[in-house]
């Protein structure tokens, strides 16, 4: 009974983060919530496969991800609506600017390959270590690191946050400094 209570509480605690991850996977709140519910029921039914002492949150994320991969991807009919039901469901942020920025960011994220997207979210937002993310995705730690790097590069490109104003001056300064060194050596 103690374990059941603990698992139930851990599930309740994990719901907000599981939902955020599920929405990033399937791009639609209603389907994400169905996915979370199914994952929780499956976890509950397979409680025996959880190893006490290991990270229960990572275990729940693994179940949710596998469920999405095995079932939801087969059912995927259409390209997800970029700013449809999801954007409409979240209109209460006080600052319109940050709201727009988040919508823009979310849209950029959708342009990434799904493996890169999920890796970046698990590490950058869900707060898992590279090792835990590798366990959740069933791949090597190096693969996760590579996907996260690629995801970041691509996002920077899409959102043009590597524009000259962001870090150009610094690079120019280095270039000037280097050319001075070369001239000095030659003279």
């Amino acid at each position, binding site marked *: 009974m103690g374990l059941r209570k603990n698992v139930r509480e851990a599930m*309740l605690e994990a719901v907000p983060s599981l*939902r955020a991850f599920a929405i990033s996977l399937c791009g639609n709140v209603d389907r994400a919530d169905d996915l*979370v*519910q199914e994952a929780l029921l499956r976890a509950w039914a397979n409680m025996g496969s959880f190893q006490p002492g290991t990270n229960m949150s990572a275990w729940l994320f693994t179940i949710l991800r596998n469920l999405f991969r095995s079932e939801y991807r087969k059912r995927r009919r259409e390209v997800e609506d970029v700013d449809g039901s999801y954007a409409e469901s979240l209109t209460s942020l006080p600052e319109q600017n940050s709201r727009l920025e*988040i919508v823009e960011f979310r849209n950029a994220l959708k342009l990434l390959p799904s493996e890169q997207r999920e890796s970046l979210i698990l590490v950058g937002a869900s707060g898992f270590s590279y090792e835990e993310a590798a366990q959740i995705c069933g791949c090597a730690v190096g693969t996760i690191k590579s996907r996260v790097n*690629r995801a*970041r590069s691509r996002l920077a490109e899409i959102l043009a*946050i590597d524009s000259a104003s962001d870090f150009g001056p610094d690079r120019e300064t280095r270039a000037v400094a280097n050319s001075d060194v070369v001239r000095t*050596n030659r003279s």
Partner: protein
Amino acid sequence: MLGKHNAAGARKTMNQDKPSARLRTMYGQRSEKNPVVKLGPDIKAKIGMQLRLMYGEVVDQGVPDRFVDMLKRLDDPNCEGK
């Protein structure tokens, strides 16, 4: 002076042998052979912040009632699973 030339020559040879080393020295510059751009810490930080904002937007909604109800039902001895 001679020593300097030798050092420069050795460095050049090494870079020719290892194109990856040459690419790494081109810090922050885009290369067709290497689509993964090395990003500065400021850009990583900005992406990280955006990610957490986006994620937090959902997390801040807490636990919707349907999950509270569902998890309550799980503890009901008359109702195993669904």
